[in-house]
């Protein structure tokens, strides 16, 4: 099967604009700008059933249609602040297939009538930002960006903005704040960015992978896109596989591919003859799926799409599948995730700021074997206390691993607190 997103794996040198053009590059953009109305593009994307690849899985076309026609200008912001632990798909797209990505951004701009698009790239991707800037310059030179595109009135300009290394800026409203030059902290919602976004104007925010899908959809139509994946989760998805597997990496597979195929067929299984113990399907933000003899086949045969993963008590998110073998205690895993969230909490709302602070102390103590059983209960309690009360999703995400771990791996915590 030919790659849709990671096409550079099929076509060497795709990061070169000439090679991209030779392989059908910018045909979608030209088609859209010269023959389609923006509304038609939106309708096509709606029909394709493309869902946001950043984690929430919200239908992209629907999101675009929320922008009010009465308030102008509109903005498109691309969220390239790929910060979820275990996620590294956007990086490969931007490095290997930048023009398809940028074509996607331009298509989104055209669809929502935005003359300006911003690409917010995490600060650690500094070389990529430089590369993308060079690509934008090249596209402007060749007339694929800028004014009077393909001889029409359409004008689209893209700008790259570097983040400063905050996980929270992957949250769309915090990203907007950061883009505006303010502290990267989430905004109160409603109003949603679709109505009051960047500089108070209607704004569409999409993930890199989502946008990279657009050229295919526009060029080949929604039906062609729907040939991949499932009814409700159409298309392909890049699964970032990491952890205790033989061959970690990005795998572009249709949505609905079962875990078994990803972990064992593509990933080569668990190294050192260890047993699969747990899976975090959405990076550090996911509930931990317990895998043992009783449910091994059920988990392995679960298709990885937005609808099926929740049946395992977790979610697909950005599909950064972290595999954990039986050599790693789960109390260590949650200590690592809480360390991360505690470090990344922006401090704006109380439950996340103080809850993570105490969860960090408790997980540290529990992992160090200096805790008693009541501390585990307290940890679960604090996590429950934080969940559902925060300003943004980060707060809720920070509790996922903790609560699922305590519920599903009680033996790990008995063992830890037992020797105190």
């Amino acid at each position, binding site marked *: 099967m030919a790659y849709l997103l990671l096409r550079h794996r099929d076509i060497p040198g795709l990061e070169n604009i000439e090679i991209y053009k030779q392989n059908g590059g910018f045909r979608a953009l030209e088609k859209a700008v010269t023959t389609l109305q923006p509304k038609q593009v939106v309708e096509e994307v709606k029909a394709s059933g493309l869902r946001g690849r950043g984690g929430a899985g919200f239908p992209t076309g629907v999101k675009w249609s929320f922008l009010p026609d009465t308030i102008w200008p509109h903005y498109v912001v691309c969220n390239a602040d790929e910060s979820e632990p275990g996620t590294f798909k956007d990086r490969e797209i931007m490095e290997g297939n930048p023009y398809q990505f940028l074509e996607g951004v331009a298509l989104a701009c055209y669809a929502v009538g935005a003359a300006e698009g911003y690409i917010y790239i995490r600060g650690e991707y500094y070389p990529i930002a430089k590369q993308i800037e060079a690509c934008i310059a090249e596209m402007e030179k060749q007339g694929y960006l800028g004014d009077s595109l393909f001889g029409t009135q359409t004008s689209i300009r893209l700008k790259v903005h570097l983040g400063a290394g905050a996980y929270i800026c992957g949250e769309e409203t915090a990203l907007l704040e950061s883009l505006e030059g303010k*502290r990267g902290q989430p905004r109160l919602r409603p109003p949603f960015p679709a109505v009051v976004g960047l500089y108070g104007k209607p704004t569409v925010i999409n993930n890199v992978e989502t946008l990279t899908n657009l050229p295919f959809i526009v060029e080949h139509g929604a039906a062609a896109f729907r040939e991949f994946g499932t009814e409700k989760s159409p298309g392909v998805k890049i699964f970032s596989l990491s952890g205790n597997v033989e061959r970690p990496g990005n795998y572009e597979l249709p949505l609905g591919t079962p875990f078994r195929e990803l972990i064992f067929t593509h990933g080569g299984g668990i190294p050192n003859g260890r047993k699969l113990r747990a899976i975090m399907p959405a990076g550090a933000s996911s509930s931990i799926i317990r895998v043992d003899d009783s449910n091994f086949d059920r988990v392995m045969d679960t298709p990885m799409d937005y609808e099926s993963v929740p049946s395992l008590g977790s979610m697909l998110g950005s599909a950064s599948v972290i595999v954990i073998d039986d050599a790693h205690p789960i109390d260590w895993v949650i200590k690592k995730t809480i360390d991360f969230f505690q470090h990344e909490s922006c401090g704006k709302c*109380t439950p996340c700021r103080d809850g993570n602070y105490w969860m960090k102390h408790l997980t540290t103590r529990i992992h160090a074997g200096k805790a008693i059983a009541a501390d585990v209960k307290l940890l679960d309690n604090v996590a429950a206390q934080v969940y559902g*009360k925060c300003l943004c999703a980060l707060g809720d995400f920070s509790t996922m691993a903790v609560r699922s771990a305590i519920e599903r791996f009680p033996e790990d915590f008995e063992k830890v607190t037992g020797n105190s």
Partner: protein
Amino acid sequence: MAKLINLKINGKPVSVPEGTMVVDAAKKAGIDIPVFCYHPKMEPVAMCRQCLVEIGRPVIDRATGQPVLEENGQPKLQFGPKLETSCSTPVSEGMVVITDSEKARAGQREILELLLTSHPLDCPVCDKGGECPLQNLTMKFGPKESRFLYDEKHHAEKHFPLGDLIFLDRERCIQCARCVRFQSDIAGEPVLGFSQRGRHTEIVTYSDPGFDSVFSGNTTDICPVGALTTADFRFGARPWELKSSASICSQCPVGCNVTFNVRREVKAGGGYVIKRAMPRQNEQVNEIWMCDKGRFAGYQYTEADSRLKLDSPELDQALSQAAVKLAESASQAVFLAGGRLSNEDFYTLKQFATRLGAKAYLYTRHGGGEYTTRYGLAPGSNLGNLGKGDTVLVVASDLYHEAPLWYLRLKAAAKRGATLIVANARATKLDEFATFVIRYSYGDEVETVKSLSSKEKVGEAIKNTHHLVIFYGADGLGLTGTTALAQACADLFTSLPVSQTAPKANNGLIGVWSTPNQQGALEMGFAPCADLAAELKDKTVYILAADPAGDDPTLAEALKGAKAVIAQDILETETTRLANIVLPAAAYTEREGTFTSGERRVQRFYPAVPARPGTKADFALIAELAKRCGIDLEGRSALLVMNQIVANEPAFSGITYAKLAEVTEQWPIIGRSDLFYGGTGYENKQGLGVTLSLTPGVSPQGRDKQATLLSPSPAAKEMRGEGLRPKEDELLAVPITKLYDNGTTVAPAKLLAAHIARFDGVFVNPATAKKYGLENGSQARVSLNGVTYSASVLLDESISTGVVLIPRSFGIPLAEPAFVLLTALEPAQEA
């Protein structure tokens, strides 16, 4: 009137205007929802998450648009899976809010617990202890005990001076950002912000010097914990030991309602001392704010070491001597009173002058009072009601420095959509929020006002406005200039259609005086004297609450040439030093009385502390003097004097002390147990004051002052239209007013010494300074009318070249704009 929305909170039906937040709706219904970051004066941010409640909304059938009904006929409700923040959720029709269910209470308790786990719990040493929202809410909603290890608690810096007036305890801070938001959204001085993130988030100041704002004290009032404390009250007393006393700030004509907190102190020999000043709510005057000058200099002068006092035989003797002198002189006596006196004092003085045949003047260089009394604000006015369709003109006044609360109120009015026109010869802080900024050259003030109507956009705004309020000041103007300017402003009113300007609320001319009660004096017919020095010669001069000798050496000379000088004041001044007879007056914090604010609002102040032995209230001293001259005046109590004022002064008709003490319900509710809601400011229980009536039934064109002026006002000289142009090498020196001046009532505020020093000098453009070989802070000589003064040079880029700004009260007696020579003072010469 906004549409009313019906909802139920804890089963109680509530109707509130559309757009109201649930938390406010609950408050109005008397239901407390705990909040920390929410403040009714600011936009919600929902970041502390304390106000969590359960909210159910009626399920609407998509097909019919009608609410789905349950079997019992009640609308079916849908509750969200999560608790919602009531501070950021607007009410909607049919909404059901539950604030006290087990789920909601648990949510509130859990957030409170998390806040407390990072709080030091050093309530015994905390200044906020006893009036602390966190303490109160913990008692009411909080958990009973801690579940976490004390050793793992977060610790942070405890003693951080944000500025010299405000201390920050980073450990106590709960990151609610009320202070940050107050500074940026309300004060318009974004000098505070957050640094770091997560648990390490801390408040920092961006300005240099730190926390450079004139509203900084307010952040300590709205801080829901003891993180921000004022330098003056630091460890001063526990709140429960304090008695409170209602008063009015005496530092500017705004008339902020304040509360003085007093208690007995060993330092005062067991007597009462004022420990702090706090704002008292008056939504029509100062809302719940006050400026730092009022807070840190408002009462301090009344406790200065230089207070005058005499024991009772001495006082008796002084009064007798003074009475003899005055009686002898009779019509040859001149009374000179400063705007610090109360209405009662002015009235008694006026009666005394009239019966004695003496002349009585108001001591001020800010004229135009005859216009503010005729075109002033009418009853029912509230700057807080100005908004879309209204126009405010500020001319020749730097409100930020002269009357900070008016600056705050006009900034808010502009935000609500009012057209704000700021006309000044130099940049002022209010420019930032103005719709139109008009720059003129000094001397062109009158021309500028006259030409406003013919300007395209500005003229439109003035012609089409629903309401017009004009503030005029004395920025760069003396007595003649201000009088002419007031006349020009008054003409602007008369040029408008009667329908727009007939005495109606939210319309009128306001003088930005430098004293708290100049308006009151004007309303009673007092007026300034055009040539004071000449007037004093060979007269018996009775000076009250004024320091002409300290302000101007020529006046000091004139006083020396007077037949006799009787000075009545609370503090020792240059004038009292050269006076023949000194009468010690009680400070306004020690007696009862009323002030009339620039908005013509008469407001009562109450005694906070007992009068010092050997002092008496001004009106009582005046009445005593009169009595010894054979004139019988009311001097027993302020109340009895007010009764006479009401009977004899038309503007004051209908006013009684009881009426001045009336209060109506104000929103937001503050004080009481609602510290967590509005801050530690005080609820107003002692009176909102009454605005003086304008002579009824007379159109502005025909409005004429009923009461005759005690003395003719100086003729308004027509000013040249092309600005005052200096000759070569000369600079145009203009007097300006800075907030922290060196006046009698400000200088004793020790805490503000550094702030006052920042304005001690002359301000010039850097280019001007360069021309004269001067730099910032260097010493220069200013030659004015042949006299040379030395002053340090302060640079300000917003001043035009050729102009030197001279702040009043710092030693250079510049009464009117004048041409001066500026020369560098060689360091060698200095040594």
